[in-house]
């Protein structure tokens, strides 16, 4: 999968997208599909232009604030939690079933409950995003921490080093590739979480814009918001990948040895 994402340049996907857009536009015109059923790319562009850049920017920022805060909160919770779960068998036995229960709960179903409890501010939206995001992070980080070769742990024990350094100098770094593969998945989940939260309680944001537009049968506008959401999600995925390469270049698999 990684190779597919890496080695192909920018052009093949762009050509694919352009082809789809042309076919889409053509079929809409040929079969005279009403725009409230399936708007053509032209309709979508027109709809997008009906909002000012400032309005778009406002909704974009509103959603991104929730995405980023929820994502950061999930990271701040899940990585220390993964360390604790690795360090203590007892904690692992008591907390993991709880985590599985949380993960098995459809977040969409509890989102309204969270909103009732916490009100309609940014906080419940951030919490919903965090809930959707943190599970893969905990699982993947724990897997990475536990995958550390036993020899390195024995080396650490035989040196009688302070126990925390087993984590700061060995396990956490060993887990970096695992953590980043989860971070990439999680950042796209965070966008989903923010939209779900906006569906339930918001007066702003791209998710709210989709909900509001469709309620007015303004489907073209909903599609325009969707395009912005997908682009943001892809951009965030790219940023996380880029950060891994910048901060931990050794953790990125090399295509060929020099």
């Amino acid at each position, binding site marked *: 999968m990684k190779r597919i994402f890496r080695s192909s340049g920018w052009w093949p996907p762009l050509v694919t997208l352009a082809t789809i857009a042309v076919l889409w536009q053509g079929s809409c015109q040929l079969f005279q599909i009403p725009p409230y059923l399936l708007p053509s790319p032209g309709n979508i562009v027109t709809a997008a232009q009906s909002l000012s850049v400032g309005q778009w920017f406002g909704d974009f920022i509103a959603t991104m604030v929730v995405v980023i805060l929820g994502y950061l909160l999930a990271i701040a919770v899940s990585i220390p939690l993964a360390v604790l779960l690795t360090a203590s068998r007892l904690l692992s036995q008591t907390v993991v079933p709880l985590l599985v229960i949380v993960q098995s709960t459809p977040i969409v179903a509890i989102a309204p409950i969270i909103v009732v409890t916490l009100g309609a501010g940014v906080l419940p939206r951030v919490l919903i995003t965090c809930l959707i995001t943190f599970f893969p992070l905990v699982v993947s980080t724990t897997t990475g921490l536990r995958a550390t070769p036993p*020899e390195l742990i*024995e*080396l650490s*024990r*035989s*040196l009688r080093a302070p126990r925390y*350094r087993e984590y700061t100098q060995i396990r956490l770094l060993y887990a970096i590739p695992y953590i980043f593969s989860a971070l990439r998945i999680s950042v796209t989940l965070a966008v989903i979480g923010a939209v779900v939260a906006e569906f339930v309680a918001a007066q702003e944001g791209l998710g709210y814009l989709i909900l509001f537009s469709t309620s007015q049968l303004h489907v073209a506008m909903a599609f325009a918001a969707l395009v912005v959401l997908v682009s943001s999600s892809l951009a965030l995925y790219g940023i996380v990948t880029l950060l891994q390469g910048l901060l931990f270049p050794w*953790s990125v698999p090399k295509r060929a*040895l020099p």
Partner: protein
Amino acid sequence: MNDSSPYIALDRVSQVFTTTDRDRVEALADVSVSVRRNEFVAVVGPSGCGKSTLLRIVAGLLQPSAGSVQIAGREVVEPHDDIGIVFQRPTLLAWLRVIDNVLFPLVHKYGRTDAGQRLHAEALLATMGLEAFANRMPDELSGGMQQRVALARALVQDPHILLMDEPFSALDALTRDIMALEVLRVWEERPKSVIFVTHSIPEALLLSDRVVVMTARPGRIAEVVDVNLARPRGLATMGDPLFNELSQRLRAHILGTIPAVA
């Protein structure tokens, strides 16, 4: 300390593991062996004879079910740091340059290193012929080079004891021979008490002062063979008639310990 008195002494050490389904696996049974200061002892035997368990017990990483271990007259009850360990796999840290991998035990233990220690680490790398690779990352090195870095890492604290757990078994035959000669040279330059676990009889004979032959399940000592080959040793040692004689004898012994063959 008297040179002939034991430096590492195992006294009737037994190790029983309880597996998850409550089976008892006897890894070591009644093992008594001693290693003198700066003596090179090889341990050979079939797979599953508890050789690695033996090393872990000497390192204090594992408490024996019965019996005791003494080092320099003191009972081993916890890990102690006058030991360097080389494992089967290099297990270098992928995020550290070669020189920092060598220095890792010091950074890990004390949180820092000083200039003198850096010089010492560089000298160790030079001994291994790796001075040009000090600033490379581990994945830029071949398997043999990585294992030499792991050896340098084990020696960076200049420990009195070196434990080697089949250190060359992951390497190709040619690299193995080169590594064995390398270890021989390093040990002759900086003598240490070494316990060297291996499957290879020629390797054991080339390197060691004594070879401990073990049987499998439970791991017991079958025989201890003195290797009275002249030092310094080298490739020529393998042509010595005594080398062949000892080799035959050990082979017969080890094969004899495997019931299916005997």
